[in-house]
């Protein structure tokens, strides 16, 4: 596929993904009403914590870092390696 077509395809895909993500958020979204501390039972669950399973995510991210041209975004730390 010629390069300009590929770039256009990338932009179209990004728009579709963003719309899908936004739709899911908007459709399932509750209002941004403040959640009081006594209402945070679900949010306090370990599996609702961002980066729970941090070690698993780090192992996965290291594989992708060594196999793909771009990396990062979720978080950083851990230093470099000669694998990329």
């Amino acid at each position, binding site marked *: 596929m010629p390069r300009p077509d590929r770039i256009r395809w990338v932009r179209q*895909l990004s728009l579709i993904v963003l719309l899908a993500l936004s739709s899911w958020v908007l459709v399932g979204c509750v209002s941004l009403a403040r959640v009081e501390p006594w209402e945070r039972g679900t949010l306090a669950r370990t599996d609702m914590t961002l980066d729970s399973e941090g070690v*698993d995510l780090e192992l996965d991210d290291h594989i992708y870092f060594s196999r*793909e*041209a771009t990396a990062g975004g979720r978080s950083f730390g851990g230093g470099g390696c*000669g694998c990329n």
Partner: protein
Amino acid sequence: MQLKDVRPRGRCTRFALATAAVALLGNGDAQAGDHRPVEVETAVLGYSEPDRVQVLEGVLSAKTELEEGRHLYGQLAFDVLTGASANGASPARSVQTFTRPSGESRYQVAPGQTPLDDGFSDKRLAASVGYDMPLDRWTNLSVGVQGSTETDYLSLGTNIGISRDFFQRNTTLGLGISVNRDRVSPLGGIPVEFGSMPRTTTVRLDDDEGGGENKTVFDFNAGITQVLGKNSLVRINYAFDHASGYLTDPYNVLSVLAPVGSIAPGTVSDILHESRPTSRTQHAVYAELKRALGANVADLSYRYATNDWGTQSQTVELRYRQFLSPNYYLQPHVRYYQQSAANFYHRYLIEGALLPSNASADYRLADMTTSTLGLEFGHRTVSGKWISVAVEYYRQFSISGAEVAFGALDGLDLYPDVSALTARVGLSGEW
């Protein structure tokens, strides 16, 4: 942005940007207790590309609360790599002979086969230590150091991050900076960029370290985590990455092919070491939504990244944890990634053509799509520890570049797909 007013249910406002800075900043409040439990998380992962790279990785991570709100955490990791790795050269119709990076031996590649260096082997050990403390009731500071060492690579770094909660911890803003200084000391020394691969072997003196080059990586991360409701939260990060110094892969080469119109078009006339720019700047935006659906949890994320090497990428990832019972879960995982090629990516060079400023035939810099399909099984033990087992299938496909097979290369696959299987076993809990 006004978040103090209670809005009617069903009306959603815009969501804010940015994310918590450092991964090791805790989102939840520390649990005080009479004794200080140590949270431990450990996992071992095996990665295997059939006929290519085999990797075994392990991580041990521990975190403990020293006193109210102050945490100390540490991590150890190891990698062992063996197998064969693509060296960047093109396949050919005849047997090809390559000199290993050490220069001490050679290896042959059969006709029609993608050249793989089967002497690929390395071990890596990494360690990091971090500390976080509250500056006030709503603000947290974290600092850390990290280092890793391999046969041919050394990395040392430090990071600092700050996060602040707002609106009764419904919103968290975070900023973080990380700096790493790396030393690349490849076997056989740093090759001359665009220099011809040696055609004969040499004997290295024991005290000849071969020399090395430095590389500096600077990262900046900013973001917001926003509670959307009792069951949902979203995080959006902006990440800036700047690397400078020696960014070339010292083990990768490019084939120089006789041009169309020559006596033997498509045949190999030379093998050159690759050359990459001495700096790379990347911007990435990452968004993640986490939503509880009863006892189950859905985690959807999207990342867009772009760098000044000409690569743009998009990643979509979904994990869904389905509880079969309170102590067992299944978690399917799907990831889809697409990238465009670096502007100096060339599958091969043409003899007699003007040499570009930079060129690499590393397929990881090509136009490429990858997909991951995985399934994790988790079990909570009687003592409250979680054991998880995961199997994943990772495929790199639709690899392509501007160069096509011609002449002697007609019919040969210059951009083969690469597949891998991974298996991971993990354990986490408090001791």
